[in-house]
């Protein structure tokens, strides 16, 4: 047999039917559902008199609309409440397992999938959410789909999908101290651009990727979509197996050992060819900060705001000009001189235990700057509890960081956590699009450590200088 990439092995293993010229029908091992992209899909099933084909492979949670304030308080946004209620009703009617906002297993869909052990190497995973790419960190093929496809998967447990191309992104060597997974992925997007990955599945390889924790790997894969990629993946290894061992919905005992043997065979064969290869040196990566309105508009912390006049490409010149106007920044300004109003640490990119630890370590014994309001929103109820068991909540609260309950929160502002027009925020989320965190809000994407450092200083600083 010719050598195969990890993606090709998983893909080939999931083809249910394939006809020339038609998109292959792919089996889906895990379907994650949330309240925003599912109501119309359930309506479609109901109208056609169809059922959910595999309830045992379908899990739902409420995350986008959920308030992050005290759970004893009601959902005050009537339209959000209606959408949350619709999920409750649909899951009850169709028999889908639901972790609602009061469940101890509730959380951001891309946090709970891996954390509870549902996401496993070799699986195909879908969700009506673009950041489904996160799950690829465990060696799964995981893609975001639209609501029509959500309905298709609910009804058939399969997806009709053309086979994407493959891209290897190799990050050689070791990361400098203080540089994190978030900085790797921001540097990658800065290098290949926001549509550098379109039509491709990215496999991240190299020493710097291998050295990342699972939480770090999930941060990298999470933002694959911001480079336009269909999915991101990292080959499972001992780090992956250690992470999964003992998780509630992972195989247990002898089954786990047997699974590990299967998972070991998933790695890309030597000699397998990718359609594209990109290389970076970890040693060259600094902490990164986005300055514009796409994740590709990014600079190292030592850098400056670019001048559109320096750009030769008309499209780029125009985009930079618009971005600087929206962001109210001037060409040539030092990144470190950007002052902040808000700091948001959370989102499916950076709301796991490693992220909370990194933020707590930076603010320990310090105080959030008087001009800044900072909040930390854990990715799940379980992670919140684990952080509290370590005393991380106390460190953050003592420093003046607001400690919230789990949800997507200010990543996209579907719940009450939003920026006011003109407010500037250091955010560990994944999108700095215009208005993403609230109409007129200005978002700078950074790592949790950099966000925490900015919270203390009131402006961006190199976390390595603290």
């Amino acid at each position, binding site marked *: 047999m010719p050598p195969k990439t990890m993606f090709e092995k998983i893909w080939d293993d999931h083809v249910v039917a394939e006809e020339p010229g038609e998109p292959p029908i792919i089996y889906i091992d895990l379907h994650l559902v949330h309240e925003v992209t599912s109501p119309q899909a359930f309506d479609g099933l109901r109208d056609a008199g169809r059922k959910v084909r595999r309830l045992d492979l379908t899990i739902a949670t409420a995350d986008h609309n959920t308030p992050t304030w005290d759970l004893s308080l009601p959902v005050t946004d009537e339209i959000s409440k209606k959408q949350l209620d619709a999920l409750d009703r649909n899951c009850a009617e169709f028999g889908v397992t639901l972790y609602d906002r009061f469940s101890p297993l509730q959380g951001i869909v891309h946090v709970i999938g891996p954390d509870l052990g549902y996401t496993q190497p070799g699986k195909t995973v879908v969700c009506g959410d*673009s950041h489904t790419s996160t799950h690829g960190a465990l060696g799964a093929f995981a893609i975001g789909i*639209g609501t029509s496809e959500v309905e298709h998967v609910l009804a058939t447990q399969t997806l009709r999908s053309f086979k994407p191309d493959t891209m290897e992104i190799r990050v050689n060597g070791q990361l400098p101290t203080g540089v994190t997974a978030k900085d790797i992925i921001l540097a990658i997007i800065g290098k290949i651009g926001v549509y550098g990955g*379109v039509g491709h599945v990215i496999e991240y390889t190299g020493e710097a990727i291998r050295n990342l924790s699972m939480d770090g790997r999930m941060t990298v894969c999470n933002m694959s979509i911001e480079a336009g990629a269909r999915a991101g993946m990292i080959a499972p290894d001992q780090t992956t197996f250690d992470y999964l061992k003992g998780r509630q919905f992972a195989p247990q005992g002898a089954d786990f050992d047997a699974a590990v043997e299967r998972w070991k065979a998933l790695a890309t064969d030597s000699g397998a060819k990718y359609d594209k290869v990109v290389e970076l040196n970890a040693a060259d990566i600094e902490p990164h900060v986005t300055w514009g309105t796409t994740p590709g508009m990014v600079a190292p912390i030592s850098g400056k705001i670019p001048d559109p006049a320096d750009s030769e490409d008309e499209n780029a010149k125009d985009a930079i000009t*618009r971005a600087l106007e929206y962001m109210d920044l001037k060409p040539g300004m030092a990144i470190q001189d950007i002052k902040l109003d808000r700091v948001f640490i959370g989102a499916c990119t950076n709301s796991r235990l490693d992220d909370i630890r990194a933020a707590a370590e930076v603010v320990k014994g310090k105080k959030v700057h008087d001009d800044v309001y900072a909040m930390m929103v854990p990715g799940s109820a379980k992670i919140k509890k684990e952080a509290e068991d370590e005393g991380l909540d106390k460190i953050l609260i003592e420093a003046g960081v607001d400690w919230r309950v789990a949800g997507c929160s200010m990543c996209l502002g579907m719940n009450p956590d939003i920026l006011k027009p003109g407010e500037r925020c250091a955010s560990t989320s994944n999108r700095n699009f215009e208005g*993403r965190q609230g109409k007129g809000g200005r978002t700078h994407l950074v790592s949790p450590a950099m966000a925490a450092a900015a919270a203390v200083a009131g402006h961006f600083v190199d976390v390595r200088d603290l």
Partner: protein
Amino acid sequence: MDAFTKLTGVVAPIDRVNIDTDQIIPAVYLKSIERSGFQDALFSSWRYNADGTDNPDFVLNKEGYRNANVLVAGPNFGCGSSREHAPWALRDYGIKCIISTSFADIFYNNCFKNGVLPLVLPEEQVREIMDKAESDPGIELTVDLVGQRVWDESEAISISFEIDAARKDALVNGLDDIGLTLRMSTDIEDYESKHGL
């Protein structure tokens, strides 16, 4: 699913790169549990002033473009979220065809499920349409998916295009994907039993 065969309508230009799904429809409008009625949310941040009045500088508020059925835009249109509300908002407004040099993958897929044609053309042809639409407000284009050609009344623009045959077939015939896949139930059952699922 809705079919798309041939369309004649006004083309509106938005000469920007990376028009993301948060611009097409901001998250605040995703709370609806309905599948339609999103027309007023389309491009809302650009289309309306802070007080809710129309922003006269935005193309869809300008004379000649208000009833646009075709949009021509910069590369990587629809990047970002998987929200199918993006093609729903375009469709509900009346925009059934978007012309660009490239689209984000999930948005591209979602369009085909909703009778919306995301049409990829080479850069010089997109530029030709963009320039014409900007200089001649209200100009109409005919987009014929069956014949794979785009033209204006004067035939100054006349462009043949390529599109994947399976995607074309699904859109032209408004095929119901789920119905088609359910016809393969035996294959799905065979797969499940072979894999112990």
